[in-house]
């Protein structure tokens, strides 16, 4: 009993004495708090790889203000609680800027910690509430859903003359967030929601979902699911011979879905905030570099991270110092153009809430290729 108690305590001491306490060094520390395991591992890996690519380029070109950038990955395990702890750890480790995470549920929890400590955070999350909480340190790298959904709904009402919609969505915080913003926007425009069909992450069989969508007799179907589930849903839609047009937001027209579902994706239309297929030279070049290095195609999360890295470089260089408060102050109301900084890829503005504004695209998948139908101007 005694020895056992002693042993446990000794081990406890030995282990906790080893908790790392890293102090400042003369590098610029970027904390990449991101989904590297769990459900978000796929999007998180895209983000991490692109971020690594960007900072390697930046370091090879002499770093920021002559200092090398040191990127540390913190795995959130796609778990909000862990992500909060990781942000705390990143701050204890002396992070200058926090990059990520992508899952809105995680950002909701950890952005408060970054705010309390005055550390700027560039997130990949798209849920509307993130920029509505009066947090002066949070910045998006892509549209919030409250910006993209209106663009899509406007297209549905004005160009497609749609009067009713059937919605298919995946029941997690990604799907729920998108579904809620979309349905709210439909109601604002007086469009009926004929069917509201939720599905599970990792669901194999979409027969029941498609039957509900089909029998709703809606003018159009809107699908908001992760890539694999999108692919399975589209295959089942084609199998059951559904004739309504299908619309989506970013994910549904993703190259990944095209690779996975093949012909079933042809004819799908929708709005895309960022796309590796966008007819923009900077993005095309980035996609080429990324694929050469990692031998897979980047998705929109990779573009977010790559741009984010160059935002850090541009703003810090502009400020002339790596100061957190100055960074947050400078980015509010800033517009960065590719002429200022090629790494930004597209002209992008931030408002005083950290919301992003840039051009976006209406696309259609034709012959297994995402093609841009029209480019929507900045709001």
């Amino acid at each position: 009993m005694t020895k056992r108690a002693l042993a446990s305590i000794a081990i406890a001491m030995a282990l906790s004495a080893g908790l790392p306490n890293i102090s400042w060094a003369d590098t610029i520390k970027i904390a990449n708090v991101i989904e590297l395991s769990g459900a978000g591992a796929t999007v998180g890996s895209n983000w991490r790889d692109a971020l690594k690519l960007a900072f390697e380029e930046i370091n090879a070109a002499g770093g920021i203000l002559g200092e090398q950038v040191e990127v540390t990955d913190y795995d959130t395990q796609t778990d909000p609680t862990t992500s909060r702890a990781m942000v705390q750890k990143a701050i204890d480790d002396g992070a200058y800027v926090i990059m990520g995470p992508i899952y809105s549920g995680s950002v909701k929890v950890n952005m408060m910690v970054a705010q309390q400590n005055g550390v700027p955070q560039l997130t990949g999350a798209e849920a509307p509430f993130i920029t509505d909480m009066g947090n002066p340190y949070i910045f998006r790298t892509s549209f919030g859903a409250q910006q993209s959904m209106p663009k899509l709904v406007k297209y549905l009402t004005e160009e497609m003359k749609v009067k009713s919609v059937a919605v298919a969505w995946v029941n997690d915080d990604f799907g729920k967030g998108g579904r809620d913003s979309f349905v709210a926007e439909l109601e604002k425009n007086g469009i009926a929601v004929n069917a509201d069909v939720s599905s599970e992450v990792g669901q194999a069989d979409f027969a029941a979902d498609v039957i509900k969508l089909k029998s709703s007799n809606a003018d159009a179907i809107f699908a908001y699911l992760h890539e694999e589930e999108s692919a399975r849903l589209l295959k089942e839609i084609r199998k059951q011979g559904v004739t309504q047009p299908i619309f989506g937001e970013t994910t549904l027209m993703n190259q990944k879905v095209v690779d996975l579902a093949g012909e079933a994706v042809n004819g799908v239309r929708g709005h895309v905030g960022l796309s590796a297929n966008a007819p923009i030279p900077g993005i095309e070049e980035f996609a080429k570099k990324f694929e050469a290095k990692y031998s897979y195609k980047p998705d929109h999360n990779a573009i977010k991270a790559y741009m984010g890295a160059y935002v850090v470089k541009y703003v810090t260089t502009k400020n002339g110092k790596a100061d957190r408060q100055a960074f947050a102050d400078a980015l509010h109301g800033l517009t960065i153009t590719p002429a200022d900084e090629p790494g930004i890829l597209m002209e992008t503005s931030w408002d005083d809430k950290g919301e992003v504004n840039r051009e976006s695209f209406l696309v259609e998948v034709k012959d297994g290729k995402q093609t841009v139908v029209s480019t929507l101007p900045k709001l």
Partner: protein
Amino acid sequence: MNTFFQLFVSGLATGSIYALAAIGFTLLWQASQTINFAQGEFIMLPAFFVLAGTQFLGLSFPVAMAIAVVLSLLLLGLGFKRIIIDPLLPHGVLPIVIATIALGILMKEGVKQFYTAEALPFPALFSDRTLNVLGAAISVQDIAVLLIALGAVALLQLFLNGTKIGRCMQATAQNPNVAEILGVPVRRMILYTFLINAGLAFLASVLISPIYLAKFSNGETLGLIAFIAAIVGGFNQIRGALAGGLLLGVIDNLSAAYVSASYRSAVPLILLIIIILVRPQGLLGKAEGRTV
């Protein structure tokens, strides 16, 4: 009615996939009281063996499949038994549960780290041309998967009941001590069971992946459903696992359509609880003669 038939047929097709995974569970349980929590990952992995062969080594699809069969048997059959199960068997069920959970994590993370975190398309073995059967859309692929699952179970039953080795395996499953006294090479019989499980996992993998896509995390959902199917059908009967798998596939669709989409995954869980309380040996299972 049309709707119901469509749901039923689609459910059978998905259910036959669950059944293939569930059969492995019951086999291992019978032979060695092993509850394999990595079963889902066992089905995820062989597809990546095939993909690695075609993509990295530039092999043709049939050659890659052949190599993947051998690798599956070696790693998921022989290796799994020798390295993990044999040393753990004397310590009872719990350490095996923990070790197989860890093994599942290892396999999942290994694929993610050394291969990719992305989902990959997998070449279909059968045409996915859609047929119209009595108003329900069903693909050639669905029918083929269903037939193969039924065929696999029939062959297994034939093998177990009709051959000497099969009967020795059954004897081993029922009472290893007595079997040993009667001169059955118990250890080899158990090994055969592990090899059959690995073979079934390979079969399930190449059948599922064209529909389900190959992804490192596929095992998470699949493993749990297969597990539930095995218990519902009867943990100690191969045909129980088949029935359990088919039943779960159909029930999942019916409850999504007629009960509630957001509670669709609750129905199999409730079924599981009821079955255990009312009929712990499962729908088609026999009450266990062996105390655990």
